[in-house]
């Protein structure tokens, strides 16, 4: 197999393995479908150009996330776009979700959007990307203890806001 073919194959493997997670992560940090897609494509374009620098395939996910976060920061460091599209995403019709649970998920999305970035981002890394607390610590450049605190507070805030909103009180207005 030629080097070029190997390079293409390697890139395609990265795209297949990580594009979904990266898109979801991008969507949650920028809140806009077009921008999220643009961010992911730009991330992979940069990855394609620098692919030879990736020596350890086990570090690929962190490498891509680092590129994406930098890209987002560079593009929107002074102007964070408004969340527009997350509300339009339909909650999946999973059989295990009862109607009340689906309503909770809708409310949960609204509350996730309202979380301060310092709480939202570690939570996204943990739940969407499957990062460990140590990996989040490495990625964000903060201590593991701080990560644990932010994750705990993120969940507590979400639970608190769900209770405050009253799942049965406000949900019906959404449908």
């Amino acid at each position, binding site marked *: 197999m030629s080097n070029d073919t190997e*390079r*293409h194959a390697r*890139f*395609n493997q990265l*795209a*297949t393995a990580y*594009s*979904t997670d990266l*898109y*979801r992560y991008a969507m*949650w940090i920028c809140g*806009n*479908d*077009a*921008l999220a*897609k*643009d961010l*992911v*494509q*730009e991330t*992979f*374009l940069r990855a*394609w150009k620098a692919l030879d620098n990736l020596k350890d395939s086990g570090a690929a996910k962190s490498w891509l996330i680092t590129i994406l976060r930098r*890209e987002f920061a*560079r*593009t*929107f*460091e*002074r*102007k964070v776009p408004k969340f527009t599209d*997350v509300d339009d*995403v*339909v*909650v*999946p019709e*999973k059989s*295990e*979700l009862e109607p009340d*649970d689906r309503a*909770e*998920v809708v409310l*949960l*999305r609204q509350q*996730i959007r309202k979380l301060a970035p310092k709480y939202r981002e570690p*939570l*996204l890394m*943990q*739940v*969407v990307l499957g990062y*460990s*607390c140590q990996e989040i610590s490495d990625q964000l450049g903060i201590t593991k203890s701080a*990560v*644990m*605190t932010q*994750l*705990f507070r993120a*969940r*507590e805030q*979400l*639970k608190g806001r769900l209770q405050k909103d009253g799942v049965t009180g406000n949900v019906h207005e959404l449908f």
Partner: protein
Amino acid sequence: MSMNYSEFRRILGADPQSQDSEFLAARESGPEFKQAVAEARAFEQKLKTALQLDVPADLNADITSICAHPLHQRASWWRPVAVAASVLITVAAIGMAWKMNRTWDSVEDYVMDHYRADGAKVLALANAGDAFKLREILADIGIEMSAKMAQSVGFITLCPTPDGDGLHLVLNTDQGPLTVIYMPETRLGDVEDIHFNGMHAHLLSMQSGSAAVIGSEDLQLERIYTELYEALTPISASA
């Protein structure tokens, strides 16, 4: 020494999948611990579902085409720039950076390359609400726009074209937001509509030069063409 309930709740709330041996042992150490685990599991399921947004079906294909498309290997789509005092400045800067070291084999190549470079970004910023100097921008390339169309401009910036500066516009129409790339000095030869990235680009001859209208497949072209043709005119012709 076993983990106390308070510490257990702290770890459960931060890292429900923790493999810490003390934490794992504590999970089974009493009814209140088990109850907390059950509640956390239920919440995590909802959290996971809430965060699991749909992914565009063509995402992976678009990404894998990056390394197959020669245009993308020539230069970056756009260079990242800080969003400065106005979105206008930002997008203008994006356009200028994107222009560097670019050549195009055809108008079709140019339109696809341009839209891929910043089309989605400009479209998304179109309703940012920042003030822009429409008249000055148009005057820069010797063009005027009808008052009616000016009202529908969600965004406008100068952009490179195969033959000098042009315009990149987003129009808010009753058919939704439309991207228009206006090339005042580019004459069309034998061209066909372009389909790329799920978009449809119509190439139109204008009073001066040409334009590409980019939107969804069900775009009603005829009305847009007439409006555009009459709305964008050389300053000398309309004076």
